């Protein structure tokens, strides 16, 4: 309760200060002649913000003031006052850019910057004309050169990158902002650069919406080919520097490549070596991303890579449930195994591998894999031998060899899907029910895996809470102490009481 009142006090204090600030700004703007001293006071306020004043408020106020001043063209004047204001304006910009890197204020800072840019583009200050590109350059420079990845600022900046003019200018500026040294020497800068590049989406939806941040920029329309060329150049520079980088950066390069760049490259074939190296030298997420790149190349550039299935097969192992790109792997595997012309023993090996993994995986993945197996059985009807053996067959231990790296040699075709029967005994009803598909005739339609890929364990928990079962069945034997009446394990192995 006490804390609450304090907070209330804080709030009232803040709102009071806010009101004061606003009234001060109003009086400043209403005065016929701009009072340099007050303006300087505002800038100072941003420089060393007092405790009871959030910097965001100061920035907002400054935004209002300078917007008005810009509109009045008070900054552009050549007399002393105009120069003075311009000086203060530049100082404000420096301070704003500093604030970009503070996580809690970055959203306001980015907003203020972009708004000021908007007004400045309309009412340019004397030597510059039109789009104030140097402002963007300043922002980007700060973002790239900071010591830790400024995730919040990047996310906020990303919103503005949906506007084609901002996108174009950013792209133009990035080329010159690529750090001089190799990526391995300045991993953080490289990371930041890549993160910014990752914001630049030249996809169809963005191009077709054709939003512009500054009204006047609409006149010179976005030249896709030109920007594409810029992107190509930028990428060549990045690739030249991106040798022997650490794993995290390598992953980021691959992500940016796959998400933003590969579709716009003039000659993606050149990437083959890079991707192949990534695929063979690493495992885990990098190999996975590289595999996706190779897949794109196979699709678009018609390269052939015979071992792709073997690679994919060996990527399916228990540890992969715990990496970030799990959904991507399932998605890729689903696409790779779409073809109905694959040899049956190959697909059978995948089926067995997936079923084995389902036995070790967390709940949500088990459901995905069971349904995936079901889909594969539907695509390749010959595989239904795995669950529809003849009755006369003898008992045998599983002939499938899980350690064999070549899926074709794993003898999966002679096996049977006992894993699924075991999964029917899974403790989570959802998994147990999913595994029951082998008992009756297979479904007619394939399952859609897409909605399952993003599910988390907590979703299953929530679903279970909403399930209809509302009968709170109790134990009918009264426990007299910590031990259960039957089958007590806790008291057997723990010396608790």
């Amino acid at each position, binding site marked *: 309760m006490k804390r609450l009142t304090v907070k209330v006090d804080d709030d009232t204090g803040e709102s009071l200060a806010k009101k004061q600030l606003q009234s001060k700004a109003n009086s400043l703007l209403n005065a016929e002649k701009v009072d340099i001293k007050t303006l300087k006071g505002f800038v100072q306020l941003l420089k060393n913000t007092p405790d009871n004043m959030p910097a965001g408020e100061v920035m907002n106020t400054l935004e209002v003031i300078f917007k008005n001043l810009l509109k009045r063209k008070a900054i552009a004047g050549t007399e002393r006052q105009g120069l003075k204001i311009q000086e203060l304006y530049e100082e404000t910009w420096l301070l704003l850019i500093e604030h970009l890197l503070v996580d809690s204020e970055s959203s306001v800072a980015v907003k203020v910057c972009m708004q000021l840019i908007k007004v400045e583009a309309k009412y340019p200050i004397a030597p510059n004309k039109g789009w104030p590109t140097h402002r963007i350059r300043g922002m980007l420079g700060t973002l790239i050169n900071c010591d830790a990845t400024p995730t919040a600022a990047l996310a906020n900046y990303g919103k503005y990158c949906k506007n084609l003019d901002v996108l174009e200018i950013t792209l133009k500026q990035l080329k010159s902002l690529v750090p001089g040294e190799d990526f391995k020497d300045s991993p953080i800068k490289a990371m930041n650069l890549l993160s910014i590049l990752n914001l630049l989406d030249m996809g169809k939806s963005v191009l077709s919406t054709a939003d512009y941040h500054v009204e006047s920029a609409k006149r010179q329309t976005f030249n896709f080919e030109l920007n594409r060329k810029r992107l190509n150049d930028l990428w060549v520079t990045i690739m030249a520097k991106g040798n022997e980088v650490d794993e995290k950066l390598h992953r980021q390069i691959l992500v940016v490549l796959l998400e933003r760049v590969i579709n716009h490259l003039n000659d993606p074939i050149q990437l083959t070596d890079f991707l192949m190296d990534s695929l063979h030298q690493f495992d885990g997420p990098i190999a996975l991303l590289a595999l996706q790149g190779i897949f794109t190349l196979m699709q678009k550039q018609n390269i052939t890579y015979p071992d792709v299935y073997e690679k994919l097969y060996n990527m399916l192992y228990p540890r992969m449930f715990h990496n970030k790109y799990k959904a991507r792997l399932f998605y890729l595997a689903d696409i790779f195994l779409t073809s109905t012309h694959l040899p049956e023993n190959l697909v059978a090996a995948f089926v067995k591998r997936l079923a084995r993994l389902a036995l070790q995986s967390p709940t949500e993945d088990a459901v995905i894999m069971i349904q995936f197996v079901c889909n594969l059985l539907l695509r390749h009807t010959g595989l239904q031998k795995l669950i529809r053996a003849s009755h006369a067959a003898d008992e045998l231990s599983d002939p499938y060899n899980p350690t064999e790296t070549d899926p074709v040699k794993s003898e999966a075709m002679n096996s*049977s899907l*006992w894993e699924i029967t075991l999964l029917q005994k899974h403790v989570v009803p959802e998994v147990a029910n999913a595994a029951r598909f082998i008992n009756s005739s297979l479904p007619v339609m394939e399952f859609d895996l897409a909605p399952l890929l993003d599910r988390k*364990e907590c979703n299953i928990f929530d679903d279970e809470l909403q399930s209809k079962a509302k009968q*709170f069945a109790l134990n009918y034997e009264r426990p007299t102490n*910590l031990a259960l009446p039957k089958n007590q394990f806790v008291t057997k*192995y*723990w010396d608790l*009481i």
Partner: protein
Amino acid sequence: MSFVARSLIRNVPLMGKAILSQQKQIAARLLHQTAPLAAVRVQHPAPDFKGLAVVDNSFQEVKLEDYRESIWCCSSTHWISDFTAAAHFGGEGDSAQDRQAAIDEMIVEQKRRKNEIAKEKDEVFDLTEKLDANYKLLLPLVAKATKDVQDAKPPPDAYDKLLKEMIFEPRGSVADKLINPDELAKQEAARLEKLENERLRRMRADGEEEEETSIAKPKHRSADDLDDGYFLAGEGDEGDDTLAYDLDGNLGTHLNGKKEAEAKGNENEDDDDEEGEEEEEEDSDEESDSEVDNLSDLKESESESEPEEAPKASKKKAKKSADTIPASLDTSIPFTIKMPKTYENFTELLSKHATAQKVTIIERIIKCNHPKLEGVNRENVVKLYSFLLQYLKDLFEDASEQDIREHFQLLSKLMPHLYELTQLNPERMSNTLLEVIKEKYGEFRKNHKMYPSLDTLVYFKLVANLYSTSDFRHPVVTPCFIFMQHVLSRSRVRTRQEISMGLFLVTVVLEFVSQSKRLVPAIFNFLQGIVHMSIPKRDVEQLEITPPFERDGPLSKLLALPANMESTKLEPQRMQPSDLVTQTITPDFKVRALDTSLLLIKEALQLVEEHDGACYLAQPFLRLLSRLPLDSYPEHVHQHHKEATELAEKLAAQKMKPLAPAEKKPKALRLLEPRFEAVYDDKRRPKMSKAKEERAKLLHKIKREKKGAIREIRRDTAFVQTLRLKQTLQSDKERHEKVKRIYQEASVQQGELNELARAKKKKKF
């Protein structure tokens, strides 16, 4: 009067009902013509009749009786003139003067009879009058006599009183039949069996049962079953329920019957045991109720407070004392305790007392606030339950090494009371607990790399004790499963506390699935991880292991014993409660954790033993167990390692039948029904209901049968007759021949006689 006329007289009124007036006139004319023809003699009074007749131009009912008086009283010339006037449509009267004397006689006779009747009536009346008068005279006499008798009754003596009392005394009230212990045990066993069956039903998934039954072969086949050996494949199975004599000569279904009997026996034994225990408990309660016991209680609680040095020895004792203490009288605690209003009051109430007394307090609160006593208490018990949950949370959340054992002891003693509370209102209590678990999960999911606090684990244990964890789907248990799996598969294992918490969770999960024998992959992964941690590895080699365990680095050999370490002397020891709160890993903890893991591996594998595919769960263990360097471990670890390895090997070598869909009975070909066409025979049959039609058919059949039978009989008689005719003809013939022969003989005789006579004549001549 002619016969015709008389009959007309009799019948006309009757006919008059229907006949029109025209016809009546014709009849009347007839009467006119016949009337003078002959004199009529009346011998008998005409029989009474009545009928409709036209009187004063309207139909009226006419009765002969009405005119009888006038007949006799009227002059002879006009006898029944009125009657005839009415009945005979105004016909003339017809007199019988010659019968005057007879009639007079008859009138006299009549009058005499009337007089007689009147006289008789008078006599009867007089007699009754007389009788009544006499009775009134007698009445006082009779009344006096009865009163005398009453007066004469002697006053009731003691015996009579007793007798009377005994008559009216209630002869004992109706009570329940005395149930002897055997029957009681039987009822209890039946109740348990019912509950167990319900549990088993819940354990199965929705469609599972049908699938299982469809897979199982049909139980009974009749002798003329036309399956033609379709289920031959499953024939070899044991457990055929055919009725047969076993080796001892007892009738029964062989094998199965025996097994069932055994199982039943075991169950019964179990039940008996439990009951025995309960009884013992009650006994001990009673004992401890007596005040003499107070001292011993004190002693025991003393011994309890010092135990930490020799936990193993005192453990059993402590447990025993724990059983005997709870209901002990403690004078410092009031008998009625009001339900505390707030949680603060509640903790205040408990804080002053020792563990045993806390339990007593809670027990008394429950008793005083039992919902049966008052309606408000329904809310109170729910509140108490949530207080208890909160209290447990506070106890365990920041438990220290010193007091954790005490907390667990308290929990142990609270368990029955928590159980009872839950029984009072399962829905409300469960929702309370579920809310708590939801909240815990909400906290956990924010950072699932960190183990939840100890109180969460305690709630899981609580769920295991209170709920039927074997259900296929349970509103409380299933979310707990998901929660526990999530913890086991995601949270990082880095310290002694985290290892112990993981092992504790594994143990609780095993308790959860001990009856349903369901599969929880996370526990197998976790146990593999623990074994993996115990294997010392060189840096270059990597053994594959599922997260959250690290494949390499220092965390991957957290539990490995250093090579120079000698710990073969360590005694076997169970996991300690202090393991749950301390962070540093000691050598004895390493040994203890590995030992417990080995035991848990064995238990876990035993649970899934019977499932197909258990080999997949056992194989990864083999790989790890073989790598375990046992030299530096004490003897009991060797033993447990051997057992676990043996079981895993056995399971890994499991052989399975390839999956095949359940045999379906082939669908029979559709038989073609013959098509009947109705033949048109131009006969119209009346439409009848089915039953009637059937009846008509049957009648027709009977008719035909009857005809046939008659024909048969006719034929028979005809045959018999022809036979008889033949016989008669034959006999006639024979007679004819006889007669002929007789005639012949006679004629021969005559001839001879004639000849003789002729010869005589000739002689004469």
